[in-house]
């Protein structure tokens, strides 16, 4: 227990931990503030104005389609309608119906808590996962590269205990930041919705769904923190984790993405890690193959789809953690320390 407390103290004392945490929290705060100032509460006057603008738009569309239809018929009569600008049947040029032009298009942005809050949990988890990854990598990487780990092992010669205690302290520290941040995130956007949008329609089911998404976000933060820690321990340097991520993202993801796209592979995104992270947060990501055509009864051509679910993502995340952390523990146990 003393080692755990000491490692927690060490984590808190590190300037990098403090600065990165502060930076992460400032970015999150900036998002909340940004959303606050870019949204407005909609009143009856704004609704009426939007209706008027929608009417205006509709009238313009009608005028424009009539002009185009006349031009089409003129061109057809003159025999110059062969350049593909106009359809064969000029009567096909029609204005959209009034109800197709929605008044909400002309409304300023407003924050609907029920509709939008779920999406905000994705950047929340992404930012804190990045912070956790970098802090985790630096926490153990700096210990290896400055000789601190060797010093510690002279005091506590149980290698696996030392590494796992460090990890436990790290995860506790990250959790201690993430949980209050999540509470503040909920509260912040609730306030934004109250002052710059709407909190209508919130039921216990919606709250439960938000809570579960939040929990998945926290788990994602902890998983990426663990992976950063394990990679840096494996390479005995912070740069190993950071370099590894750059290599995976640039070569493994962008490169692979381009390659798959050039090879016209079906559902290329299914091979890319961010898809699984997104599926973990949104429960399902539906990929579409636009090169395929599934005809419907109405004669429509629908692309083939493939669902990536959060359960599949959970398997990928679990395997990733087990393999990378397992390798770090194995290396810690086996290798010479110099």
């Amino acid at each position, binding site marked *: 227990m*003393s*080692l755990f*407390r*000491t*490692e927690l*103290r*060490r984590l808190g*004392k*590190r*300037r990098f931990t403090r600065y990165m945490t502060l930076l992460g929290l400032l970015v999150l705060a900036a998002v909340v503030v940004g959303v606050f100032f870019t949204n407005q509460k909609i009143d009856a006057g704004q609704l009426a104005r939007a209706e008027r603008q929608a009417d205006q738009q509709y009238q313009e569309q009608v005028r424009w389609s009539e002009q185009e239809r006349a031009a089409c018929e003129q061109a057809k009569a003159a025999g110059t309608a062969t350049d593909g600008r106009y359809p064969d049947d000029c009567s096909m040029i029609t204005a959209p119906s009034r109800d197709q032009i929605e008044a909400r298009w002309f409304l300023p942005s407003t924050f609907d808590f029920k509709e939008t809050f779920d999406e905000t949990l994705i950047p929340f988890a992404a930012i804190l996962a990045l912070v956790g990854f970098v802090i985790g990598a630096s926490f153990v990487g*700096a*210990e290896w590269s*400055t*000789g*601190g780990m*060797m*010093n*510690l*092992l*002279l*005091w*506590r*010669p*149980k290698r696996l205990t030392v590494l796992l205690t460090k990890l436990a302290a790290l995860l506790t520290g990250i959790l201690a930041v993430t949980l209050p941040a999540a509470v503040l995130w909920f509260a912040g956007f609730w306030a934004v919705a109250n002052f710059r949008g709407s909190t209508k329609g919130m039921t216990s089911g919606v709250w439960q769904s938000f809570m579960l998404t939040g929990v998945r976000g926290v788990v994602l933060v902890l998983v990426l923190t663990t992976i950063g820690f394990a990679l840096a321990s494996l390479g005995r340097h912070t740069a190993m984790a950071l370099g590894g991520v750059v290599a995976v993202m640039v070569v493994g993801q962008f490169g692979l993405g381009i390659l798959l796209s050039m090879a016209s592979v079906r559902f290329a995104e299914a091979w890319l890690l961010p898809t699984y992270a997104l599926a973990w947060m949104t429960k399902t990501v539906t990929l579409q193959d636009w090169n395929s055509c599934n005809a419907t009864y109405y004669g429509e051509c629908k692309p083939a789809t493939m669902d990536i679910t959060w359960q599949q993502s959970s398997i990928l995340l679990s395997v990733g953690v087990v393999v990378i952390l397992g390798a770090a523990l194995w290396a810690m146990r*086996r290798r*010479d*320390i*110099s």
Partner: protein
Amino acid sequence: MPAVLEIEGLRKTYKSRRRGTRNALDGFDMRVDAGQVHGFLGPNGSGKTTTLRTLLGLIRPDGGRMALLGHEVPDALPTVAGQVGAIVESPQFFPHFTARDTLSLLAGAGEVPATRVDEVLELVGLRDRAGERVKTYSLGMKQRLAVASALLKKPKLLILDEPANGLDPGGIREMRTLMRTLAESGMTVVLSSHILGEIQLICDSVTIISLGRRVAFGPVDEVLAQHSSGAVRIRLEAVSDLPLATEALTRAGIRVTGHPDHLMLAGVDKPASVTRLLAEQNLYVSELAPIAVDLESVFLELTATAPVPGQNRQVDESMKVGGAGQPGPAGGGWGA
């Protein structure tokens, strides 16, 4: 006296596809008795640090047996770690922490009372600079901090690798005094150093390692005596008698080198026999001085690392124990 550190037949081999196989430790033996200040000497790359790292569980040995404070290690390291303070190679600390933070975190990890931190800071002379970041410290100050970290747990056995490295002359003397004081308080100190004059001054016994094997060990006096060449310098009342003396001594089987005002004799077991021999020839000695060897010359001889004019010795060019044309180790078995 009970042994606090025992190493027997320790082997460590590094294998590399490119560089082949290198025996860092090749059946190394060592023994340190309780309460001693023990010097651990060897040229660069001879295996000193590998020995200490292996002993402290940082490196996995390929063979041999080790014991610390009567416990077999590395298995019993968790049991004895609290009684062994060590610094291995150059002091390494997280540069952005202060000395007090560094020691406080180590004390926390080792369940040492926080009050001990100030005690050791005082002991190594860092009390007034304890609040500064380690990255602002000179090498000597980092060395002091390293010694402080090793002393933090009031160890029974203190292992210090090059503790005087980077210290100023005053610091070296303080370190010497500290080592002696610690030994007098009952602590056993193992000291690895290249400052052989210091080792000779403060150590009770030494172990010399070369190419991963022990080449000499025992109390400093005995090691020096074993490698003393029996050289004696004599002066006579009359310088003109030197040729007669040379003749008489040569006849007696003593190797003599003449100098304008004195003679150097080699292979003299008992200096009294020289005075008796010369007196029988009515040659009277005005000065007879046995030439003492120092640890440095013994070290250079045993490890074959003395500089040769015109040659650049490479790191691993050292004496191979038992090699062709080389003397064997100074002693065998355990201890002195």
